[in-house]
């Protein structure tokens, strides 16, 4: 699998999601989905968890999807994909699959709520059962569709509507869950982390994930200007800073081997990631300075762990 994304070729591939959708200006979701779907010419079935992407692309009687698409519930996306995969296997056994359906790929999209929190059990089960699909977590670090409540993907210190910055609490008090390590612990064939700003890296990983036989997982950082309270024009810049600060390392795990795809020469301080987003503004005040320190320590410690993992691999 030495796929190198070619933007010219990718741009000629069928556009499975139409431009007409209701996502906010500057939202990362549409960009990411387009980048991921552009890397394959195989037929694709999209399974979508409840959330912004689902609401903004499927309002009856219109649809933005030019490919078979299903939304069932919030937490069962991976299980629905499992059922589709099972039907495919049964159809193959019964010789009921014709034409290009034989090459179909199943791609699930869920937010961080539908992945880290409410969807974790179904995801774990589907991976363990060897479901042949790609599960993409569109991680915007909270429940954005309901007005930014904290999820277990929300960073330490983030002010959300259920972890507001108050007089005695400076935003979210606990660290983010390490979903990539949790997924990797299932010993699946392929898992990776990416951002839409590093688009060639994302597209290469998407191609690898989609072409992998068996379960694969992508955790993609997705800017949410509406709830991060950042300008709609700086989403990609925030993605880049998430990478340059080591807040969001670009990594992949192939058959158990951890690989860091990019190491910043001079790691930027976490403040560079925080400062364009008003959800962190209290971290620059006296009452939040401790939280900012803790977040810096967490990011550095996790990076050190990652270096060790990559080295051991």
């Amino acid at each position, binding site marked *: 699998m030495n796929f190198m994304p070619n933007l010219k070729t990718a741009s000629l591939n069928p556009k499975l999601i139409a431009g007409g959708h209701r996502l906010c200006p500057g939202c990362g979701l549409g960009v990411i989905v387009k980048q991921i779907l552009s890397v394959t010419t195989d037929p694709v*079935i999209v399974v979508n968890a409840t959330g912004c992407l689902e609401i903004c692309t499927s309002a009856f009687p219109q649809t933005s999807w030019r490919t078979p698409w299903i939304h069932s519930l919030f937490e069962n996306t991976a299980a629905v994909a499992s059922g*589709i995969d099972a*039907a495919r296997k049964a159809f193959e056994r019964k010789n009921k699959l014709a034409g290009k359906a034989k090459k179909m790929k199943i791609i699930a999209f869920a937010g961080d709520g539908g992945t880290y929190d409410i969807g974790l059990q179904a995801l774990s089960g589907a991976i363990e059962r060897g479901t042949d699909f790609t599960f993409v977590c569109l991680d915007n670090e909270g429940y954005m569709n309901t007005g930014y409540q904290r999820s277990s993907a929300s960073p330490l210190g983030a002010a959300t509507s259920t972890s507001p910055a108050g007089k005695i609490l400076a935003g979210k008090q606990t660290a983010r869950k390490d979903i990539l390590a949790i997924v990797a612990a299932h010993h699946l064939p392929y898992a990776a982390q990416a951002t839409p700003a590093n688009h060639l890296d994302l597209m290469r990983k998407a191609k690898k994930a989609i072409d992998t036989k068996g379960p694969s997982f992508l955790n993609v950082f997705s800017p949410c200007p509406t709830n991060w309270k950042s300008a709609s024009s700086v989403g990609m810049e925030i993605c880049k800073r998430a990478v340059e600060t080591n807040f969001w390392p670009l990594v992949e795990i192939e058959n158990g081997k951890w690989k860091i795809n990019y190491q910043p020469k001079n790691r930027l301080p976490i403040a560079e990631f925080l400062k364009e987003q008003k959800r962190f503004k209290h971290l620059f005040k006296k009452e939040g300075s401790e939280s900012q320190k803790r977040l810096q320590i967490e990011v550095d410690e996790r990076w050190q762990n990652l270096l060790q993992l990559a080295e051991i691999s």
Partner: protein
Amino acid sequence: MQKILNGNEAIAFAMKQINPDVVAAYPITPSTTIPEKFSEFVANGEVETEFVPVESEHSAMSACIGAAAAGGRAMTATASQGLALMHEVLVNASGLRLPIVLANANRALSAPLSIHGDHSDSLLERDSGWIQFFASSPQEAYDLTIQAFPIAEHEKVRLPVMVCFDGFETSHLSTNIEILSDTAVKKFIGKKKMDDSLFDFENPKTFGGYTTPDYFFEVKRGQAEGFESAKKVILEVGKKFGKKYSQPIEQFETADAEIILAVIGSAFGAAKETAKNLRRLGKKIGVIKIRTFRPFPSEAILQTVGKAKKIGILDRMVPLGSDGGVLFNEINSALSSTNYKPQTTNWIYGIGQRQFNPIHAEEIFGQLFSGKFEKINFVNLRG
């Protein structure tokens, strides 16, 4: 052809003959031996089904949704807490109009924990948009499982079907069962039409989109119409299967009965036995059993109970804060549309598998004759 099978084995055997595309299931007493038995069929290559051993009942029904949306025939089996955990997905499956078939071995709901039978699990799901059958014997459980797909997939119905049968009393009762040949089953259920499928890449479709207040109501009304059509389709399919199923209810000696007991499920046996014995003593009594619970067969019930002065309605769930059990309220609601006003009373029995034998049915008839009863009565309850 006859075979000795218990209720669970009978359903597993029916599933084998149906040879569905996908079975997704999670173990739960008293339905566990259905997926156990079925995975033996899979392991021995006796079916072509893909078995999905999911990590929860929520995922079992979710996998069924994926498989059915792909155009496959999908089945599962569960009970009690499992059905309750599925609740959200049951409503979703019916809203998506997916013809999934589920076998439910009726069992009480916790707390306190009970692994034993009553109807509180499936009756809680009576408004989840599923056609509900209540079998009263392993034979009926088998027969109804075979009939389920032709009903569920009928173009005017397109609703999922739940075949309910009593945990232990039916699930673990071994009897001689009249089974169809594999070819007869194959012919009876026919091939599934693939008019809407996720696997149709030429005409891609969006399943389960978001609706605004402009459309949601119409979609739900469509489901209600599916139930209207189902009334006829259930009888058509039933008639084709066998004369017994040409009615949504079953009756015993109701024509001249002054007192009638109305039941769901396996209690029909005890009630019928008792009525038979009391008839010999000249008592004018009868029994009706509601087999199709959703859509509720109001007309058939009214036609059958027409002459009775008293109807004792048996509910195998405890009404909590309601003026009667589910069946009691349903039958009273049916009666409210007529001028015929028999005295209706509610008899709560068999909760958490409290014994219900002919002797208890006899007590109910006795009390109904003597007039010693309340509106809601608890059968075989201590204290």
